């Protein structure tokens, strides 16, 4: 069963691009929110993660800040 994966990112952030590429390479579907242009999603990201750095991943409610490959793998069961 595919997991519900959301990523909060900015278009210019190199680590966001790397994180999204990693998900694509592993055939993981995800929803991408641009927090630079979507203020509601930006507030949601800050509320969920308690901080303002991108990227933030929400994998079935587990919040991961940054391109933390090991945690992402574990959360996705890769």
């Amino acid at each position, binding site marked *: 069963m595919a997991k519900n994966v959301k990523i909060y990112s900015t278009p210019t952030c*190199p680590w966001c691009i790397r994180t999204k590429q990693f998900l694509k390479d592993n055939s993981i579907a995800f929803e991408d929110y641009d927090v630079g242009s979507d203020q509601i999603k930006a507030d949601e990201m800050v509320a969920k993660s308690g901080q303002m750095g991108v990227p933030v991943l929400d994998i079935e409610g587990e919040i991961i800040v940054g391109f933390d490959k090991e945690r992402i793998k574990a959360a996705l069961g890769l």
Partner: protein
Amino acid sequence: MRIYDLIIVGAGPAGITASVYAARKRMDFLVITGDIGGQTAWSADIENYTGYQFVTGPELVDKFEKHMRSYDTNVKEGEGVTGVEKTGGLITIKTDKEREYQAKTVIIASGKRSKELGIPGEKEYKNKGITYCATCDGPLFSGKTVAIIGGGNSALDAALQLERIASKTYIINNTPRLGGDAIMLQKVEKAVNVEILNDSSVLAISGDKFVNSITIKSGEEEKRLPVEGIFVEIGLIPNSDFVKDVEKNNLGEIKINNRNETNVPGIFAAGDVTDVPEKQIVIAAGEGSKACLSAFRYLAQH
């Protein structure tokens, strides 16, 4: 314990290039690194890496990583090296995963990291208003008042990015005038919502849940500026603390000769962590290849 021919510390342009050469020489080796790509992964646009008229940092790192992994190289990613010590003929490497590795040669290619301010409030508010990557986090400060700390090219670059995003940007620079390239400086001076505060240093950062102000000293006067974002752009320091026995210069860069040898036989270094003149991706890559060939030669002779 298994004894490797070579351990490469770091996987930026220098470490990755060294790994490609090591794989092609069929050396028995290992790469230990916190992350892949180093500073290159943080770069937005790259226009001076030969063969690419234009490439982004993430794209180039992706190519580097795929090249490295095409040889089934053993990469310990997410593992930070905490110590490098040579005793007898062998070098022992300790990591933050409480592991130890041994090798006959080591290449230190651990690069540089952003310098921190070292003032009250910095640790508490990291990623809670304070950021070290304007390119990444800049868009989150849309319509807000922000401060950039620094006075060189990276500070100017951040100011130009934030000009379009923030409602007001202060540049807090501790020298009498801004440095950096003339073209960028002119653009920054023309920007309407950018205020340059020269001869000013930062004393403290405060807030509640997130940053809400910064205390600075301009000349003899102390004042508090209300800001919601702080961009630290005060330069880089080498990741060389974990290796004690090699000689370093006053910046903490590892001293090497033109064969990438340090003063300790068998320990080589390459890229931005060294005192090589000019820090460039293409130079770091070249240095990585040189360091690997030197290590290969060393193994043949010892």
